[in-house]
């Protein structure tokens, strides 16, 4: 009778072996699929309901915090008290769409580690702190507000940087959105609406959109001329009314269809001050593709920019692309054609001139604090690269100061403050131009460098210029900064 009992036992052991195989398959092979399934409440719980760290501005304004749910003190709701003002910087930590912005970049620091993973537990056993950490930003809340309201209802961006440290003082992109809506019950519908909005409120124009820099690019052309010794501020350059582009019927004209100076020749200084396209286009041809591309790259074009948020690379074509296309080279020298830059990049260009030719690595986060409020790490200013020599920077700074004193940028003038700048009015081919102002102040010891961009002329439309639309916005921002931090 033992035979059938043995068979029954064997059948059961076979069944147990199948169980072990199946549980191995379930937990190891198919496991990750189930673990990461969006419907898995653990995935959802890891994003929501947990306490996350504070995010503060440099002047300790609360920008993001976790507030205990009144119905369930174990759960926390993420709140962004400043809403639209910081939407593109801080992003959101959303149940439906995951994390974005600094909430994503610092997800590991901001989240509570009283969580699921073995490594978290190990670190706790080794004395690690499981509580969420807090961030303090380099952003000055007052300046951010001024920049935000100065843009008004126009689409555009402001990036303000402290030139000697790279700290971002303000970074605004408009139109914006309220990140709190991404956390609420209508999150999905809200996102659909925002995605369908042709004004692209979700885009961070400061870092993730590139625009033709127009005449602001002349800062870089001038740097190339001075560094190579081809021209100095007082060098006389040809000054035609219009420049016929070699091999084409296209011409480059100055903004007012006049000559730049009074005669057939004009100094570089005057051409820069009045932003003469004909002069700079010719200067570009004179310098050659090699020199322009190299100079653009030393200012950060075609380079990855180390930053807490993703940054789209600014673009200047390689020399080979100009070999059979001199018109393109001439147009690129005035920041048109295929040249593209983010507002952040152009702010770094201004900051380089302000900081004796050195570009500091831009940064948004100054300190990380533990739950007790003790600083765990502090952002040390880091050199990104040298763009121009200190003496070239000095010369260009002087040229830029003249732009604001008596050139295209007079509307950026702040009483009793030496302001340097450069305007830009970039033709887009379709619709009104994108207008720019880049600059810094005070010239003798700069504490702020900025770039202002208004898309498609803003409210001024076809008539917009960098000097008439972007410079006044820069003026408001610089005036506020110098008044409160001067």
């Amino acid at each position, binding site marked *: 009778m033992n035979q059938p009992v043995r068979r*029954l036992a064997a059948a059961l052991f076979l069944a147990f072996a199948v*169980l*072990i195989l199946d*549980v191995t398959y379930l*937990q190891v092979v198919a496991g990750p699929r*189930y*673990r990461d399934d969006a419907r898995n409440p653990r995935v959802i719980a890891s994003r929501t309901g947990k306490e996350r760290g504070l995010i503060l501005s440099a002047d300790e304004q609360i920008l993001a915090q976790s507030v205990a749910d009144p119905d369930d003190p174990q759960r926390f709701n993420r709140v962004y008290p400043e809403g639209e003002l910081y939407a593109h910087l801080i992003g959101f930590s959303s149940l439906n769409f995951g994390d974005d912005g600094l909430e994503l970049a610092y997800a590991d620091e901001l989240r509570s580690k009283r969580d699921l993973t073995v490594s978290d537990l190990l670190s706790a056993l080794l004395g690690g702190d499981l509580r969420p950490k807090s961030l303090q930003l380099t952003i000055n809340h007052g300046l951010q507000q001024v920049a935000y309201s100065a843009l008004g209802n126009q689409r555009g961006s402001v990036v303000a940087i402290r030139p000697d440290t790279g700290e971002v003082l303000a970074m605004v992109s408009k139109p914006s959105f309220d990140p709190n809506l991404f956390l609420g019950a209508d999150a999905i519908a809200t996102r659909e609406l925002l995605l369908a909005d042709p004004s692209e409120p979700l885009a961070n124009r400061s870092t993730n959109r590139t625009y033709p820099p127009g005449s602001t690019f002349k800062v870089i052309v001038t740097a190339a001329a001075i560094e190579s010794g081809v021209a100095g501020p007082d060098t006389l350059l040809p000054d035609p009314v219009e420049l016929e582009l070699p091999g084409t019927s296209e011409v480059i004209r100055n903004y007012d269809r006049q000559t730049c100076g009074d005669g057939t020749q004009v100094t570089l200084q005057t051409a820069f001050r009045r932003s003469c396209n004909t002069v700079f286009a010719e200067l570009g041809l004179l310098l050659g593709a090699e020199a322009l591309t190299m100079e653009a790259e030393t200012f950060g074009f075609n380079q990855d920019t180390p930053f807490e948020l993703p940054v789209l690379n600014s673009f200047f074509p390689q020399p080979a692309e100009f070999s059979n296309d001199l018109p393109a080279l001439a147009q690129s020298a005035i920041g048109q054609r295929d040249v593209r830059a983010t507002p952040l990049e152009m702010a770094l260009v201004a900051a380089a001139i302000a900081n004796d030719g050195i570009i500091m690595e831009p940064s948004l986060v100054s300190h990380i604090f533990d739950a007790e409020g003790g600083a765990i790490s502090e952002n040390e200013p880091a050199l990104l690269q040298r763009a121009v020599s200190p003496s070239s920077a000095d010369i260009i700074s002087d040229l830029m100061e003249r732009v604001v004193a008596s050139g295209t940028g007079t509307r950026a003038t702040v009483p009793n403050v030496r302001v340097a700048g450069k305007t830009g009015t970039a033709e887009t081919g379709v619709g009104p131009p994108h207008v720019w102002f880049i600059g810094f102040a005070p010239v003798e010891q700069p504490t702020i460098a900025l770039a202002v961009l208004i898309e498609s002329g803003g409210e001024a439309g076809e008539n917009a210029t960098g000097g008439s639309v972007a410079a006044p916005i820069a003026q408001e921002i610089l005036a506020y900064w110098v008044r409160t931090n001067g």
Partner: protein
Amino acid sequence: MTRNAEAALLVGAASVAAFGVALVNLARGDGLDAQVALTFVVMIASFGGLHLAIRQWSPEASTYLLPLAAILTAIGFVEVYRLDRGLASLQRWWLLIATALAVSLLLAMRRTGLAPLRRYRYVFLLSGLLLLLLPLLPTDWSFPLRGFEQNGSRLWIRFQAGPLRLQFQPGEIAKLVLAAFLASYLSERQAVLGVQTRPLGRYRLPELRQLAPLVIAWAASFVVLIYQRDLGASLLLFALFIAMLYAATGRGIYLTTGGLLFGAGGVAAWLSFPHVQRRVSAWLDPFGDYADTGYQIAQSLFAFGSGSLSGSGLGLGAPDRIPNAATDFIFAAVGEELGLAGSVAVIATFALLVAVGFGISLRSRDTFRKLLAGGLAFVLGLQTFLIIAGVMRLLPLTGITLPFMSYGGSSLVANFLLLALLARISHEERA
């Protein structure tokens, strides 16, 4: 293995439970509290009491049974505690009651041994059938003992007297009682059942008269199936009958016929009961109707997947997201919080326990003891397999408990009584 080694292992199991409770407390952010000590004391009292009873009244019993059951009980208790502290404190009472009843059983058998089981078999048959039918008592009569329905199955009775309310699944005990009856009946008729045949074409069938127990078994299971609408309990009962019949006779015809009969019953159940259809469709495609029928099994799969190799750690997972996690789905909670390491360990421990049971059966020289031990080991193993396969979606889910681990008084009582029976059988064989 000596009795002292067994005692040491029992202390180990109690420590596992206490240590697990402490970990859960720490993981949940609560300090260490009286629960840790209370758990240790209750485990020591339960296992220790049973251990002493075995030393006293069945000294030759296998030393492997109790430690294996104890470690399973300990792990299960920690997960129950982690899921629901209210249930855990009830579970501690049930553990004390279950082991006390097992001690009483050993005490009752100290002189007579298993003989009364054998002798009064029809009393056991009757009481078994009665137990099976108890849940059909009216829900709303004045008598304090009432049947009631839960999750579409009518498997429960409830005793209500004033504030005191006890719930019990009599079917769990019925399994043991009917196993005893079958072992007794079959050991006597074994020779007859196995030999006499009637030809039918090429096949040789047993005499119709000899098929009677099979028919009774099928009918009893079918009653459970029809009136109580529970596929799992019915399958267990039926498989127990078939397996014991096969063990007694060695005739494969019982297995095939039984399989066909159960298949027919299963199809009939699927056709007639909506809750069986729901379980089958949830099994075939849990994510097809995620929000409704598939929800529970999908939560179980999420738990296993999230557990991965090493698990989230006790108290750090989210097995509370699975409906009925503490009862039917306790194994998914183990899979999540203890990972593959834990789930394989639990399956292996069950396999060992079942192996010990079959070992007792194989070593028995007496037919009754052999059949009883084999039947008990088989039903323990099959129940374990069915519920684990169910929560892993290897088979459709059947609402049965995981022995020793699930929350539930009836299940604990039944399984510790089963353990006491196996202990007594192994003692008698060696004594």
